[in-house]
C-alpha cells in the first residue's frame, strides 16, 4: 500500500500530468470565481477533452479543476456577497461583513488557509478512511439519510436567532418548493402551471443567486457606496487571516472533519456540511455576538468544510461507484470514458491511481492557495470599486449563473422572482439559508422518506440512528430557548419583589 501511495505521488509529477493539472486549476479558478458556474457544470464541459488522455492525466485535469472551485468560490462570497458556488454560501455570513469592515484580506486569508487545511484533511481521509468508514456508510439506509437532511435544516433554523419558527418555516417552504416539477415516480406535473420549464423543478442556482445576490445588489445601490464601507488599507491583514487559521486550528480541524463526514455520505449536499460547520463554529463559541457581523471563526468553519468534502466525496465514488456529490457523479462519467470500473478494482489493481487522487487534491490546493495569496491584493481591491460600477457586472453574472445552469432564459425569471423574495426576507427578518437548504435537500428528503415509509412504515422513526438524529435536531431547536427561559427565570427569582 505504501508503494502505491508513493507511486501515486510520482505520477502527479509527470511533466504532462502536472501541466494538465495546472491548466485544470486555471480553468477551475475562473469557473469558481464566476457565481453560478459551478464545478459540476465545469467538469461536465471538460469531459470531451479527456478522451485522448491516460487516466492519471485525465483525473489530474478534472480533479485540479474540481479541487479549486470551492476555494475560489469563497472569494466572491467574501468580496461581493455572491456565492461563487452553492457550497460557498455559508462563507458570506461572516466573510462579506468582514469585507465591508475593510477586512477583506483577513477574511480571504482565513478562507484560503482553512480551505487548504480542509483539503489536506479531506484528501488524507480518502487514503485512511476507506477501511474504517465503509461499514458505517453501508449501515446508513434511507431513514438515516432522511433524518440527516432534517437535522441539517434544523441546524440552520437554529441560527435564526429569536425567529426559530420563521427558520423552520423557511426550511419547510424550501422543501415544498422542491416538489415543483415532474414527480420522478409517476411523471406527473406538480405545481408547474403547465410550464415545461418547471418540469425540472425550481432552478437551484437561479434561486440561490436570486435569494443571496439580488438583495446585495439592491443594498449596494441603495447605499450608493463601494462594497467595503471603510478603506481596506494594507489589505486588512491577509497574514492575520492565515494566522487565524492556526490560532483556531482546533475549530478548523473539527470543521474539516465535519466536511469529511458529510462528504463521504453519498447524496448529502456539500452545502449542508458548510452550514453545519458554521453552526458548529457558532455553537462551540461562548461569545457569539460577533457572528453574522464579521467574525473570522464564521469564515474558518465553512472554509475548512468546503474543501475537506472533496476528498471525502471521492471515497464512496471510488469504492462503491456511489457519487458523494454532483461533481463526483459527473466524474463517474470520466471513469467510464477512461475504461475504469469504480469498485474493488480501484482499491487493488488501480490503487496507485486512487492514491494519485489524494495527491492531486492536496497539490492543487497548495498551488491555488499560493496563487491566491500572491494576487490577493488585487482581488481585495475590487471591494473598493464604486458600487455603481460593480452592479452591471453583477447583474450579468447573476443572470448568466441561472442560464449557465439550465441553458434556459426561464432561469432569469426564476432569479428575479427569488430576488424579490430575498429582498422581502431580508427586510422582514426571514432567514434565507434554511429556504435554500430545503430546496437543495428536497428531492433527497422525498426519496428517502418515501422509501423509508414503503419499507418500514412509520416504524422507521424508531431506528436508533434516526431517533438520535431527531433528538439532536430537537435539542438544537429548543435548547437555546430553554436556556434563555431558565436564565430569565433565575434572574427574576434573584430580583426581590419580582
Amino acid at each position: 500500500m505504501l508503494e502505491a501511495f508513493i507511486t501515486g505521488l510520482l505520477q502527479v509529477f509527470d511533466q504532462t500530468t502536472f501541466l494538465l493539472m495546472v491548466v485544470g486549476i486555471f480553468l477551475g479558478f475562473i469557473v469558481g470565481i464566476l457565481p453560478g458556474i459551478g464545478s459540476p457544470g465545469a467538469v461536465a464541459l471538460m469531459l470531451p477533452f479527456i478522451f485522448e488522455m491516460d487516466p492519471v492525466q485525465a483525473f489530474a485535469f478534472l480533479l485540479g479543476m474540481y479541487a479549486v472551485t470551492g476555494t475560489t468560490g469563497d472569494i466572491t462570497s467574501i468580496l461581493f456577497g455572491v456565492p461563487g458556488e452553492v457550497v460557498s454560501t455559508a462563507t458570506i455570513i461572516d466573510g462579506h461583513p468582514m469585507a465591508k469592515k475593510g477586512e477583506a484580506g483577513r477574511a480571504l486569508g482565513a478562507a484560503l488557509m482553512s480551505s487548504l487545511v480542509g483539503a489536506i484533511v479531506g484528501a488524507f481521509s480518502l487514503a485512511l478512511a476507506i477501511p474504517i468508514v465503509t461499514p458505517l456508510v453501508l449501515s446508513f439506509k434511507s431513514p438515516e439519510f432522511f433524518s440527516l437532511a432534517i437535522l441539517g435544516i434544523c441546524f440552520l433554523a437554529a441560527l435564526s436567532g429569536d425567529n426559530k419558527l420563521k427558520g423552520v418555516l423557511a426550511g419547510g417552504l424550501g422543501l415544498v418548493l422542491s416538489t415543483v416539477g415532474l414527480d420522478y415516480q409517476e411523471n406527473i406535473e406538480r405545481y408547474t402551471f403547465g410550464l415545461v420549464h418547471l418540469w425540472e423543478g425550481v432552478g437551484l442556482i437561479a434561486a440561490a443567486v436570486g435569494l443571496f445576490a439580488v438583495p446585495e445588489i439592491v443594498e449596494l445601490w441603495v447605499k450608493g457606496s463601494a462594497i467595503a464601507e471603510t478603506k481596506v488599507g494594507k489589505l486588512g491583514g491577509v497574514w492575520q487571516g492565515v494566522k487565524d487559521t492556526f490560532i483556531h486550528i482546533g475549530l478548523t480541524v473539527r470543521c474539516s472533519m465535519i466536511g469529511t463526514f458529510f462528504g463521504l455520505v453519498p447524496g448529502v449536499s456539500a452545502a449542508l456540511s458548510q452550514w453545519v460547520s458554521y453552526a458548529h463554529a457558532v455553537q462551540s463559541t461562548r461569545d457569539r455576538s460577533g457572528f453574522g457581523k464579521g467574525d473570522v471563526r464564521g469564515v474558518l468553519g465553512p472554509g475548512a468544510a468546503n474543501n475537506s468534502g472533496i476528498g471525502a466525496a471521492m471515497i464512496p465514488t471510488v469504492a462503491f461507484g456511489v457519487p458523494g456529490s454532483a461533481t463526483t457523479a459527473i466524474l463517474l462519467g470520466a471513469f467510464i470514458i477512461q475504461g475504469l470500473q469504480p469498485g474493488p478494482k480501484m482499491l487493488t489493481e488501480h490503487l496507485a491511481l486512487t492514491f494519485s487522487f489524494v495527491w492531486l487534491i492536496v497539490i492543487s490546493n497548495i498551488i491555488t492557495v499560493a496563487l491566491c495569496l500572491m494576487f490577493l491584493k488585487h482581488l481585495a481591491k475590487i471591494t473598493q470599486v464604486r458600487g455603481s460600477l460593480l452592479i452591471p457586472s453583477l447583474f450579468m453574472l447573476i443572470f448568466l449563473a441561472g442560464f449557465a445552469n439550465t441553458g434556459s432564459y426561464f432561469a432569469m425569471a426564476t432569479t428575479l422572482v427569488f430576488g424579490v423574495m430575498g429582498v422581502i426576507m431580508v427586510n422582514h427578518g426571514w432567514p434565507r439559508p434554511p429556504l435554500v437548504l430545503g430546496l437543495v435537500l428536497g428531492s433527497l428528503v422525498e426519496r428517502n422518506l418515501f422509501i423509508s415509509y414503503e419499507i418500514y412504515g412509520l416504524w422507521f422513526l424508531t431506528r436508533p440512528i434516526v431517533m438520535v438524529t431527531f433528538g439532536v435536531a430537537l435539542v438544537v431547536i429548543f435548547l437555546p430557548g430553554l436556556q434563555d427561559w431558565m436564565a430569565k427565570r433565575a434572574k427574576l427569582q434573584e430580583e426581590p419583589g419580582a
Partner: protein
Amino acid sequence: MRNRTDIGIGVLLVTLLSWAVWEAQGWPARTRFFPLAIGYPVLAMAVMHLAYSLWLGLRPLRFEQGPAAPDPLAEAGPILDPAVVRKRTLEISFWAVAFAVGLYLLGFKVGGLVLPTIFLHYQARETWVTSLAYSLGVYVFFKIGLEEALSFPLPAGQIAYGLGLYSFDSYLMDPILNLLR
C-alpha cells in the same frame, strides 16, 4: 409596520400552502405523498406564525416585542431617509428587470455591450468613455473568455433569432478572430 407586513406575509403563506395541499389531494398516492407529508406540517407552522403575528399586533403597546432578529446575511446599513431607500430600491428593481429583458432580447454578448453602457451612463452618471470601456470589457469576457476559450454556448437573443440572424456580433467579430487565429 413590520407587524402588519408579517401578518400580510403570514396570510399569503397560509393561502399558498392551503392551495398547495388542496392541489395535491387530486394526485395519485405516490405523487402526493411527499407534498402532503411536508405540506400539512408547513401549513400548520404558517398558521402558527400568522396567529403569533396577529397576537403580537393585538397586544398592548407596552408589551410590544422588539424587531425580529435579523437574517445573519443581512445587516443594517447607514441610516437613510426611507423615501430615498424606496426610490433607490425601485430604481434598481427596474434595472434588474431591464437587464433580464435586455439579455433575453439581445443575448449575453450584445446585451453585455449595450445594457451596462446605458446603465452606467444614464443611471450611474459615468462618462461615455468609462461606460463604453467597461461594456467592451464585459463583451470581451463573454466573447473571448466564455464563448471562445470555454466553448460556452451563448444564445444570440430573441431579436437576432427573429430576424433570422446567426448573431449580431459574429458577422463582425468572427472574421477578425479568424484572422488572429
